[in-house]
């Protein structure tokens, strides 16, 4: 009797911490796979979560900040600035698409936009590795190529998920801000130089 009662209530309170974390991590990982291989599926929209975007944003902001104190007026973005740009950009795009009449919910849209930063985070990792080598025009061209490819990947992934939620005569109006958002992030990644 008691065990049956326990089966009916929400069982996640009693499971071990490891189970909880692994379940969430698996969900996040599954969504990463969906972003890397964008197909028209509803997984990102159906069970949205904001863990993935948070992990990605923090990683990106950590890698992009300048650590040294000899920053001049041509300084690059700090951690807080990257964070703010990413999250406020995502919120603005979400508001825009909802105001244009899209039938996607607020957090679903945030989830999709956040997860589609994954290719750009990969680009940032690659750029940092490439920057360990000698600086020069070849170095820059390699980084430029990587960033462009990942930028295109992000756009394709996010439009695969977001475009269906808009009425057809407003698709371009809803997709352009996404383009601008990822362009700004790609620009931040491309212009990153370590001091």
């Amino acid at each position: 009797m008691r065990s049956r009662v326990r089966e009916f209530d929400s069982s996640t309170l009693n499971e071990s911490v490891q189970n909880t974390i692994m379940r969430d991590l698996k969900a996040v990982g599954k969504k990463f796979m969906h972003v890397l291989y964008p197909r028209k599926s509803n997984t990102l929209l159906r069970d949205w979560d904001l863990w993935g975007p948070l992990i990605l944003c923090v990683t990106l902001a950590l890698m992009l900040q300048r650590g040294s104190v000899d920053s001049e007026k041509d300084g690059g973005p700090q951690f807080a600035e990257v964070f703010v740009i990413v999250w406020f950009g995502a919120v603005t795009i979400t508001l825009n698409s909802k105001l244009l009449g899209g039938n996607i919910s607020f957090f679903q849209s945030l989830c999709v936009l956040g997860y589609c930063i994954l290719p750009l985070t990969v680009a940032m990792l690659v750029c940092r590795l490439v920057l360990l080598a000698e600086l020069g025009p070849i170095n820059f061209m390699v980084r430029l190529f990587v960033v462009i490819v990942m930028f295109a990947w992000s756009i394709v992934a996010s439009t695969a998920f977001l475009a269906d939620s808009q009425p057809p005569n407003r698709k371009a109006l809803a997709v352009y801000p996404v383009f601008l958002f990822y362009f700004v992030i790609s620009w931040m990644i491309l212009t990153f130089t370590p001091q």
Partner: protein
Amino acid sequence: MAAVDDLQFEEFGDATTSLAANPDATTISIEDPGETPKHQPGPPRGSGREEDDELLGNDDSDKTELLAGQKKSSPFWTFEYYQTFFDVDTYQVFDRIKGSLLPIPGKNFVRLYIRSNPDLYGTCRAVLILFHVPAELRQQKDLCDLHYFSLATTFDTYVTEVTFASCILMMKGEGDKKLVYKSLKTDSLFSCLNFLVSFAGPFWICATLVFAIAISGNLSNFLIHLGEKTYHYVPEFRKGQTAVITTKTDAKGASIQHTYRVPTACWERYQPGSGAVKTRKIRSPDPVRQMDVLGMSIAATIIYAYAWLVPLALWGFLVWRNSKVMNIVSYSFLEIVCVYGYSLFIYIPTAILWIIPQKAVRWILVTIALGISGSVLAMTFWPAVREDNRRIALATVVTIVLLHMLLSVGCLAYFFDAPEMDHLPATTAAPNQTVAAAKSH
């Protein structure tokens, strides 16, 4: 529907005969969908307008009823209220952008494009144009069902180009106003009013402009300082505080700039060339500098302030003049914001082309952009002020164009370095000056 049309044509005859003796100019403009129609500034003035007043008086209650019943009436704290500001389609935005790029004299940008469905996605200026769409054309998906237009004595023929056949017959004189109002009363499509002002276009045009200016400034500064070597020296002080000294040398090896940033407490003690300097050379050969977030924030503030505060001032000014002098057209605040936003579109390709580090090219671009957008603005606002005192009208238009020029020249001066820095003689700045400059950082 045929009955309604017949009714309209009958009234057409009545209207023309009754108003044949009334040559005065009449203006009706419905400014804001949120306001009731009683706020029309035009008709109550003048002696020859009792008929109109009567008519409007009769119609007002009906219209208010219809308006209240079928228009969006969400209070401003609901989401739906703001959704109405984004009710615009892609092709409409593109049309308006095209309209802002090609100022054609004689065509009022607002009337031709925006009043049919004012939107702020691209910030077009929307002059509310209302014209009645015949029944058979209402079936077409891409036409707004019902539009208002402000009747003016100087009604141009460009309206005929907007392709509504029955409107061509209608929009020809005083009788039209009565006709329109009668038909509005009886027309069931009154509910399809969508002279909605939309914020989407202007907002994203301004955002794109901010990023275009910041990124182009970045790239152009790289091109200008190409060939210079930048060395960063990091001296260490006894207090453990660090400072930054930058010396730029041009291609010939002569040093052209010294920048010192030292803690204010010990700048008197710092001497260039003193033994406490530890040097570390860093040269960054990338074609782009790091994204300058502060500069981008400043650009964003300037451009968004311009896109909202100047229309506010202009609207206030027009309202004030409107209360003194009867104007033919009065624009609502959101319409003005719309127009200003779309008029800023020309600066996006201009900002990208400003990368070219030639002064002559930059100033030619400024002139062209200012010419196009300034003329669009001037032609849009001219009907609003031309009934006014000549001097005031001219002053208004000149001020509008002047502010526009100030914006473009200011952005050019602030974000883009002058392209002739390598002609400066080699100078070693005195520590006072540079530290004073550094103190302000």
